[in-house]
């Protein structure tokens, strides 16, 4: 099975408190720790496990600046066979459609049976997988939390739906799936693993290598544009308990008693 995994480099929210910069044009990027989008690790792990079971190759792809190479390499250290970086000045400012068009152009140069994306990334859009599938005219399933390979032409997938229930379907290959967290336990990647793939070549493809219409990519092609960042007015937020730790504990226990929080 030839599998493509799409990964995005994002600020690591477990390591950083995300703050808006002074003029609201961006988040505060100094000292940010970046990593691969949480969902994408599950997608890469799933791809590697499928390959290990049925054979084939896993290719990892990212659209981004030069820095995005590090996340591609990290997933190669997990066990992906090869990586591709799609990078070009002209890609900057693309909206979800634009990113999907760029990935589609690369997909058409190869021959893939299965494309995995994460369910969502840092901006909570959850759009790339579904758009890519529609652009390719391939079937799609989102929020996938189970994959079983039936044969070369079809697989069984479980989708997470409300209430912890699971929707089972059969889906024909090639297809695109967006992967939900919890589908597997992504393996740990240590420094040694990264070192092992340090010298592997990661080709960089840009507009010259891909057949892309300029009207759908970059800032000028974007129909959806972010204007600014701001912090939601915490006006009616929680009453924050202040004082010494003993005072806070006293107040809290008092509240718990009156609200029925202690039995």
């Amino acid at each position: 099975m030839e599998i493509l995994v799409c990964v995005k480099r994002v600020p690591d929210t477990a390591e950083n408190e995300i703050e808006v910069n002074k003029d609201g044009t961006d988040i505060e990027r100094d000292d940010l720790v970046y990593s691969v989008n949480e969902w994408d690790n599950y997608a890469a792990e799933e791809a590697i496990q499928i390959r290990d079971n049925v054979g084939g190759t896993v290719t990892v792809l990212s659209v981004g600046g030069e820095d995005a190479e590090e996340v591609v390499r990290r997933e190669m250290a997990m066990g992906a066979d090869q990586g591709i970086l799609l990078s070009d000045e002209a890609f900057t400012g693309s909206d979800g459609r634009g990113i999907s068009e760029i990935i589609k152009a690369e997909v058409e140069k190869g021959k893939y049976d299965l494309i995995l994306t994460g369910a969502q990334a840092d901006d909570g859009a959850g759009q790339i997988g579904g758009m890519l599938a529609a652009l390719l005219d391939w079937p799609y399933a989102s929020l996938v939390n189970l994959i079983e390979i039936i044969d070369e032409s079809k697989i069984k997938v479980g989708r997470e739906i409300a209430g912890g229930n699971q929707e089972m379907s059969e889906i024909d290959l090639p297809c695109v799936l967006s992967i939900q967290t919890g589908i597997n336990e992504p393996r740990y990647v240590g420094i040694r693993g990264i070192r092992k793939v340090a010298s592997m070549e990661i080709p960089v493809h840009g507009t010259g290598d891909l057949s892309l219409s300029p009207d759908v990519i970059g800032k000028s092609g974007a129909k959806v544009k972010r204007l600014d960042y701001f912090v939601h007015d915490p006006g009616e937020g929680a009453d924050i308990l202040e004082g010494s730790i003993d005072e806070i504990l006293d107040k809290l226990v008092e509240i718990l008693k009156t609200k029925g929080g202690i039995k």
Partner: protein
Amino acid sequence: MAQTVFTYILHKDGKIDDTAFELISAAKKILPDAPVIAIAVGSGSELEAACNELSASYPEIWKIDDEALSYPNAEIIRGLLPRIIPQGSIVLVPHEHFGMDLSPGLSIKLDTSFLPDAVDFQGMEDGKLKAIREEYSGQVSTHVLCDIAQGSVITIRPGVFKADESKGESGTVVDKTADALKEGLPGQSRRFLEVVEAEVGDVDITKSEILISVGRGIEDEENLEMVNELAETMGGDVSCSRPIVDAKWMEKSRQVGTSGQTVKPKVYLALGISGSFQHMGGVKGAPYVIAVNKNPKAPIFQQADVGVVADILEFIPMLTDKVKEIKG
């Protein structure tokens, strides 16, 4: 021609989802004067019941009725809708499990812009729709401009728009089945098999009055011990956010949220939980929410009644001792 706003209706067992009314409010904020038409897809008497209920709030309902649609398979519906939705329309879909499956691809099929997970709208600016979204699980918000001139598919976060149930309509149901199906049934490459129901756990947290809920801030599986002790001392049950279940530290049946359980306790104590809408979407019945988080800007503090800025690893044992003390 004026743009029409279509709302996609979720319904189950003949009952329509609350989002059906929230989408009306969202539609009115996007284009106050545009006609709003509900689209309901399904089959037989269940669809009929849903349409009946809709007709009290919507002037017009378009239905697609076919046996093959008795379970909402997004792959099929994504193929059907472009056959009936006029070019340039705005389509609103709830941003939940089905909407996330249907919508991004639908925008491609309709060749419109796509705006995911909108939480508010602020009218038009430079001929474009100005919307508010959140990023980084709600840690920051953004204004975005979305070009809707050639139509748009917009997913709406459930629960943020007030339900518009201004009754009094006696809406007409228009049967669009023939138009939708005249070229046959699309989406056959994804075939629905069954729904596997969630496993029932040892404790039914949906019945708990006091929930001590723990999130990624607990850092380590071993630290769950102190949470259990606190819960026992308070006389409550332990629940959790999704990362705890993903890590297999607790059973899925303990997960609170849109893809877990919907709980209705009296008191909800959130420990090291950031407060994503998918988590808080499972906290219903207006409980008294107490949040403990080391980040004073964590979104959970916007939703809690009372907050404590502290490291839970230090705070939990101290709270346990204090509760023990007053219980004597």
